[in-house]
């Protein structure tokens, strides 16, 4: 009788206790950045990135986000620009092939809007970053999307005379839309 009650309690508790693990569906997911060039929007994407997420919208505090990005997969749809941004003054693909975002502090703003506070590692710089996102899930699939603005100077993206912001703007907008499937 006591055991039965315990099992029942356990069964009821499982949906709350178990923060789900999510895997990203790469072809359906996008990670974009929008720089500005001579006051004109200059959009790009990272083609190669991955996200592993542990998240339960009912219990965001237990969540965790790990994103890795292959910097050399940056594509600004121009052969000339793609070549230039790999250089040491920009992303420096050779020395910093990978960027990452790790967050283990997630809180609800309201409804399905959340904020993940974590660390962005980019070009050897680690900086605390708050990433707002909207989470929608249904059964085994979820979508996580959001937008934030970073200062390229904080990460040494554009050094030397490129630190001037009149030609290449200071702000870079990041937009992401991740399609996730429940793992395991």
């Amino acid at each position: 009788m006591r055991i039965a009650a315990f099992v029942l309690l356990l069964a009821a508790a499982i949906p709350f206790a178990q923060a789900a693990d999510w895997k990203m569906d790469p072809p359906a997911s996008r990670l974009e950045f929008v720089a500005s060039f001579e006051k004109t929007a200059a959009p790009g994407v990272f083609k190669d990135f991955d996200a592993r997420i542990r998240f339960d919208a009912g219990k965001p505090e237990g969540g965790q986000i790990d994103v890795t990005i292959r910097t050399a997969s940056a594509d600004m749809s121009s052969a000339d620009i793609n070549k230039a941004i790999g250089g040491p003054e920009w992303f420096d693909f050779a020395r910093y092939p990978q960027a990452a975002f790790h967050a283990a502090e997630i809180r609800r703003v309201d409804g399905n809007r959340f904020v993940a506070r974590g660390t962005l590692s980019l070009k050897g710089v680690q900086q605390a970053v708050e990433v707002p996102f909207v989470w929608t899930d249904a059964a085994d699939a979820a979508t996580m999307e959001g937008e934030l603005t970073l200062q390229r100077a904080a990460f040494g993206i554009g050094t030397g005379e490129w630190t001037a912001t009149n030609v290449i703007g200071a702000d870079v907008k990041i937009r992401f839309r991740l399609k996730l499937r429940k793992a395991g």
Partner: protein
Amino acid sequence: MLRNDTDSWGTPAKFFHWVMAALILAQIALGLVAGNWPLSPLKLTLFVWHKSLGMLILALAALRIGWRLGNLAPALPDGTAPWERRAAQASHFLLYALMISLPLSGWVVNSAANVPFQIFWAIPLPAIVAPDKATADLAALAHLSLFILLSAVLVAHIGAALRHHFVKRNDVLARMLPGLGR
């Protein structure tokens, strides 16, 4: 005097001639400097100027050709040899063709290279071809070849004008000068 007549150019024709002469010379200088400048913010800014002037020249060239077709051109002096008349006609035709084809080929380069660009930092320029490295390289070669042709025709044009003035001592050069129309 607005319209051209058989022996003089009207004010609009002179305006087009000298404004575009100044723009084209500035454009040549900008193109050479921007093309050879090491990659830097200044290079990108020089290119915005070059591309913006190019689009201005293209618009002015279209207006100018329209004006030229709707007007007669002053006659060449009596005694101009048939070969000189043919050379004048051919070089003027080439100059008009180059005023259109040089900016157009530059526009193709910009579109194919897919570099974000707004004319004078204000007006977005639509792409006329899809982004493609091979197209960009080909159009850049065409742009350079047309520039070399333009340089040759300009030398002939300026040389001929000076020859009319100083050797043949006629008014072909003088009648294009502002305020010196007959």
